[in-house]
């Protein structure tokens, strides 16, 4: 339970953390919940595989575990172990893990941008990531030849380059001498986003048969996720998350204005650059396979702030876990709600996100949570 600072200091020995215990327990609890959610949603899908069988298949993959899952009867016929493992391990699991990674990346990137700009409306797409990725993906779908680099197809490759390129242009445009004024950065991002989006829209009008694919990409979704995609996204997201989390305390101090942060010994311009690069990297690598999934980046950090407070040392890891859980659940809805059709997960996140956001706006009147 939360204690007042005075109570803590009246104790004979001053504990190392004030009111941190509840947040640490929350972190551990959410981490456990994430694992449970992953296991649970692996059992859901168009092929009804019983929970116990799914669990056995997952467990059998762990080192030092030696069990052979029992083959269940599906649609009146026994399912071979091979097909069972393919469905669970090669179709469902990578998709669920990618959803978790993308959710974590978007939530942390959103929290980072909100902190960096001290603006509650900032989201991971603020500086042109979305419009750049959208244009890149659209171009990739319209070019008449196929192109691939390593495991990357043309669409993710172009989307990634477009996202990074857009932010790089915004950064160069917004630079004033050695400094990077946040307001200029936001305005440059908004302006470039408008420009790139208009080009994408024009390309869509002349895209003909490709229009369907472009629209689905722009709405976001995790359709046929392969392990190779997980292995590409994982290191990028992990590296970015670590870089951001290391700078959680400077980010806290930067919630004062930049001048005060400097007076407290923070090298503001360097921290801004590191956070900007890391947040852009994790956002771009996350969405280049999945398309533009909205609202996770703006909604999750606010929800976490409301519940656990504004300290970025907890806000960032908590957002990561909540974002992962949220997108895994949203994607499970997207693929199971009306089989065999799939709803783009971006629609589900926005459908849940928009009402929540309106609720936040109502509630914010009496409560400073930012």
């Amino acid at each position, binding site marked *: 339970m939360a204690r007042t*600072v*005075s109570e803590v200091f009246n104790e004979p020995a001053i504990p190392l953390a004030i009111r941190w215990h509840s947040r640490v327990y929350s972190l551990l609890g959410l981490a456990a919940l994430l694992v449970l959610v992953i296991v649970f949603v692996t059992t859901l899908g168009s092929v009804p595989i019983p929970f116990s069988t799914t669990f056995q298949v997952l467990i059998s993959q762990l080192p030092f575990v030696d069990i052979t899952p029992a083959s269940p009867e599906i649609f009146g016929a026994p399912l071979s172990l091979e097909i069972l493992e393919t469905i669970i391990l090669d179709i469902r699991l990578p998709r669920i893990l990618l959803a978790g990674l993308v959710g974590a990346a978007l939530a942390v990137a959103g929290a980072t941008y909100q902190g960096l700009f001290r603006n509650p409306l900032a989201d991971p797409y603020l500086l042109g990531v979305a419009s750049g990725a959208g244009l890149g993906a659209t171009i990739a779908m319209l070019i008449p030849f196929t192109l691939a680099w390593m495991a990357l197809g043309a669409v993710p490759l172009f989307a990634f380059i477009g996202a990074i390129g857009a932010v790089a242009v915004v950064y160069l445009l917004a630079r004033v001498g050695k400094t990077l004024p946040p307001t200029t950065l936001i305005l440059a991002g908004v302006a470039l986003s408008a420009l790139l989006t208009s080009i994408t829209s024009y390309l869509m009008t002349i895209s003909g048969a490709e229009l369907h694919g472009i629209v689905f990409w722009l709405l976001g979704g995790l359709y046929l996720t392969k392990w190779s995609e997980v292995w590409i996204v994982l290191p990028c997201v992990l590296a970015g998350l670590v870089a951001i989390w290391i700078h959680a305390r400077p980010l806290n101090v930067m919630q004062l204005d930049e001048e005060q942060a400097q*007076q407290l010994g923070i090298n503001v311009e360097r921290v801004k650059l590191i956070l900007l690069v890391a947040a852009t990297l994790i956002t771009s690598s996350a969405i280049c396979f999945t398309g533009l999934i909205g609202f996770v980046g703006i909604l999750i950090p606010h929800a976490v702030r409301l519940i656990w407070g504004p300290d970025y*040392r907890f806000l960032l890891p908590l957002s990561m876990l909540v974002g992962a859980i949220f997108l895994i659940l949203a994607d499970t809805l997207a693929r199971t709600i009306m089989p065999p059709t799939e709803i783009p997960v971006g629609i589900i996140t926005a459908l849940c996100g928009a009402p929540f956001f309106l609720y936040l706006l109502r509630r914010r009147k009496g409560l*400073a949570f930012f």
Partner: protein
Amino acid sequence: MIELDNISLGYNHQAVLHDASMKARPGQILGLVGPNGSGKSTLIKGMAGVIDLFSGRILIDDYDIKTMKRDKLARIVATVPQSPVLPGAFTAFEVVLMGRTPHLGLLRYEGGKDLAIAWQAMEATHTRSFADRRVSELSGGERQRIVIARALTQQPKAMLLDEPTANLDINHQVEILNLVKSLCLEQSLTVIIALHDLNLAAQYCDWMVMLNGGKVYIEGTPLDILTAPNIKKVYGAEVCVYPHPINKLPTTLITAGGSHGTN
């Protein structure tokens, strides 16, 4: 001791302050006065290392601040800015604890010692009673004291204050400046304070520097420099200056309509 050696500084290659020199000593309050735009805030930003000098040197205990890393400077010099932005969702104690930032590495969390220092600073600034309140719920005077507590938590040798009493009522002005004065004496701090109010400056400063148009116009004790001719010359205001009825320090009086009697 802080020593300014012929410094010029400003913004975007345009100097606001030219060839200023002065010395501030531990246990003393140095007051910066002068009209709006005379360079008081700029000077404080220069000493805090927020803006670079065009020329000259700033020495703190004979070390040039240009050679210091930002966090090292923040361990020596703490700044209380003019109307600082504070994040409303943080508690008062969390904001005070941010004063430990320059003492902690990137990955180190505040330990018991850091918490104790912050708590001590809140004792000195009489802010313990609202330690758990969110900053958004605090009054202007309470916020100002929180920022002073944060500056103390840096355990600095020098404290720079830019108009710490702006926007405060007369009681809170006196409370803040009494606090600064006692901290200055007890902890042997070097205090440099920019003030608009000449009467407050006269009461609290040991030494004053009057700036005009980006240059040092005159420096000396309040008694020496707060004279009607100096104020007329620097501020363009017609005033009467009388000794304070209790401590004889110069007291500046204005007359409605701008006319003045004999002085």
